[in-house]
């Protein structure tokens, strides 16, 4: 069983504060499956500038960031697996496409998102993944198919 702390995750993902949205990897089976967490806190930039006296529902963690956190978790699995296999990919990591994503609940400051992601298929620089996001024993999202892509040429000359 592989576990990774935040320092390890920073070595794997190119994302940085405040958009590095994976805190810890609880379990990783290379090429197969990952379980990772991201803690939502009220001090994140997405909670800056909110009106006063809003209902509790206004503090729902944005769906866009939830999907990003899930995608980054999948990227950790993919990139760690590639490194373990001795493969090296160059280019910019981007979100290619997704299908059959349902969002059935929300997370709030203090909650811990727990993503489980499985690799369905790896084709060249494309990784097809699926999984679920949980808060405690509540499943708040199901992601039927998410495609991550490493695209070359986007960052020509920047050394990305």
């Amino acid at each position, binding site marked *: 069983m592989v576990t990774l702390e935040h320092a390890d995750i920073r070595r794997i993902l*190119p*994302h*940085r*504060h*405040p*958009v*590095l949205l994976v805190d810890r990897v609880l379990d990783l089976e290379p090429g197969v499956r990952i379980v990772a967490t991201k803690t939502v806190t009220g001090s994140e*930039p*997405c*909670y*800056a*500038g*909110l*009106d*006063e*006296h*809003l*209902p509790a*529902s*206004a*503090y*729902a*963690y*944005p*769906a*866009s*960031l939830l*999907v*990003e956190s899930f*995608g980054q978790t999948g990227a950790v699995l993919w990139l760690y697996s590639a490194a373990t296999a001795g493969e090296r990919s160059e280019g*910019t990591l*981007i*979100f*290619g*496409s*997704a*299908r*059959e*994503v*349902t*969002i*059935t609940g929300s997370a709030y400051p203090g909650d811990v998102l727990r993503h489980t992601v499985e690799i369905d298929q790896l084709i060249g620089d494309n990784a097809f993944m699926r999984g679920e996001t949980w808060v405690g024993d509540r499943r708040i999202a199901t992601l039927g198919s998410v495609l991550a892509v490493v695209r070359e040429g*986007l*960052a020509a000359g*920047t*050394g*990305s």
Partner: protein
Amino acid sequence: MSRRFAAPLTAVDTVDIADAPAGARVEAVKRIAGEDPYLVGHYPDFTIYPGVFTLESVHQAIRHWATERHGPGAVAELAAITSISFAAPLLPGDTLRIGCDLTERDDTPATVRAKVRCHRGDGALSARMTLELRIDRRDGDGHA
């Protein structure tokens, strides 16, 4: 500026809403700025507007429609991404143009379907998506 919901950034600059036979046509524009929140980390040596921020832009455009159509207490929550795909990347200085056709249904709780095509300022298709959103009416408690 302040807002009434948690969001990574102000993801639309202008929103235009017009009635359409089955619902509404929503068009929105967002100019990509490297100084926007979160972009400094995406990525440190090469800034690119994250795909999920295009999703956020579309969501915020539909939030504008929901409050115009149903009042300031109405909230449009993302319920499903039926499909989403990204083509041309958006970099600082680019303009994102959103064209969204909304279909309203009379279900309770009300759900709307959004078919969306997004273009970059140079005309390239940057993203398309089909979404479902749930319109919650919180008349009374949603007012700041």
